[in-house]
């Protein structure tokens, strides 16, 4: 066989092997994550419960993220109002601003932006923390000492993220509405009571409930992905950075995927 044909053949072989190896590792990763997911629910309902750790994690995820979420929410409401006003003003429909902003914040922007901020702040934090615990063999030590590291580390963090995210979204929505009120009053003069009565007039439970369910799922995804990436981290200190990075990237991607699915499901159920 000529030399050039041999080199083409060997490069094809390498490519095929690479694809097979990559697919295999993706499938193994998916299977591992499914096991991790099932184990989370099993450990969640099985006593004993790590209440103290759960409270501590709730404080870290909830209270510590409030400032960031609040500032982002305020700016979001303000900017959205300022940007929307000229278009509505063209139709003489400026009085629709509060209703339009409230529906878009409660239904979509509030939950997604809050989840993305938490994916960045909380997700990377959990991923890096758990990965360093793995690298420094703290998780192994816990296993050897007979305690259940999964329950202590994963269940507490994921449950805290799952419960704190809807609460953070409520804060974010409220602050965004206030930001919108400020935005409306920059060029106009709308009474506080009128603004909020107009904002709530167009809202219904079909806007609020799907949004809260969605944010619970976002919290579950952020917690589970970050814990999974950190818990099974390897490659030493390099793995810590990789776990933090992967936690943010995969969580953010899954937030958008869950969002589109949630919109379709809620529209199907409501209609």
């Amino acid at each position, binding site marked *: 066989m000529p030399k050039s044909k041999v080199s083409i053949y060997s490069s094809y072989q390498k490519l095929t092997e690479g694809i097979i190896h990559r697919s295999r590792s993706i499938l193994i990763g998916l299977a591992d994550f499914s096991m991790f997911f099932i184990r989370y629910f099993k450990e969640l309902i099985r006593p004993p419960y790590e209440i103290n750790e759960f*409270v*501590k994690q*709730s*404080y870290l995820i*909830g*209270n510590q993220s*409030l400032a960031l979420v609040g500032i982002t929410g305020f700016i979001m409401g303000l900017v959205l109002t300022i940007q929307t006003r000229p278009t509505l003003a063209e*139709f003489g*429909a400026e009085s629709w601003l509060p209703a339009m902003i409230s529906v878009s914040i409660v239904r979509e922007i509030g939950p997604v932006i809050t989840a993305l901020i938490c994916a960045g702040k909380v997700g990377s934090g959990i991923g890096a923390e758990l990965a360093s615990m793995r690298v420094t063999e703290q998780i192994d030590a816990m296993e050897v000492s007979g305690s259940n590291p999964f329950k202590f580390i994963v269940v507490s963090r994921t449950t805290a993220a799952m419960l704190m995210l809807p*609460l*953070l979204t*409520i*804060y974010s*929505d*409220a602050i965004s509405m206030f930001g919108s009120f400020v935005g409306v009053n920059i060029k106009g003069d709308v009474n506080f009571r009128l603004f*909020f*009565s107009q904002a*709530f*007039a167009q*809202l*219904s*439970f079909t806007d*609020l409930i799907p949004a809260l369910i969605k944010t619970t799922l976002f919290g579950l995804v952020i917690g589970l992905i970050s814990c999974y990436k950190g818990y099974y981290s390897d490659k030493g200190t390099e793995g810590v950075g990789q776990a933090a990075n992967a936690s943010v990237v995969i969580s953010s991607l899954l937030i958008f995927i869950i969002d589109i699915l949630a919109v379709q499901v809620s529209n199907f159920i409501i209609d």
Partner: protein
Amino acid sequence: MEKESINKIKLGIFLVIGLSILGTGTYFIGESNQLFSSTFRIHSVFKDINGLQVGNSIRFAGMTIGSIESINMLSDTSVQVDMVIDTDKMQFIKKDATAIIGSDGLMGNKILNINPGSISGKIIEEEDFIGTIIPVSFDNIIQQLSKTSENAALITGDLAMISGNIKNGKGTIGKLFMDSVFAENINGTIVNVKDGAESFTQNMNAAKKSIFLRGLFKKKTRAEDKKKK
């Protein structure tokens, strides 16, 4: 340990405030949907609901007093609309009240306006039916406009034909405007009429001076002078 309990207190405050905001929001949303107020139900049957939807507002004297609870088709020409209305507004609505479908501004949602009915009428009761007024729909306006434009097209067609005939010198007016011979004839006729009138004036003057008719003209002049006095 102390730091831990402070954190727990902070978390507690965070939870309480968050849940209070949720509770307040839930209350206001519920209130706008009449969930927390006492309501009564009345019905109306429309031929055409004009895009009215479940949840649309009901207005009475410009105030929002309720919402559309359900819409059911009874037959091909009648649609039943069920409304829930605040109980405290019940006393103002009479049995002969009427409902009409309108819209909230040019681009707004459809709304159902209730006209109060006669002052001496009986107050409406739970599950009563109220009459309806057929609204002028946008489609009807368009239909009318289409008829008008059809008529306008016919009229402009006729006008175009008439102006074409005039331009081509057809008909009396066409000849008047366009035919030079006709114009000359008219000119000649006018000249003849003028000559005739002059001759007639001369004859009349001669008649006034004639012996037979002088008395008659003098009598006429005297009668006119008398009238003036």
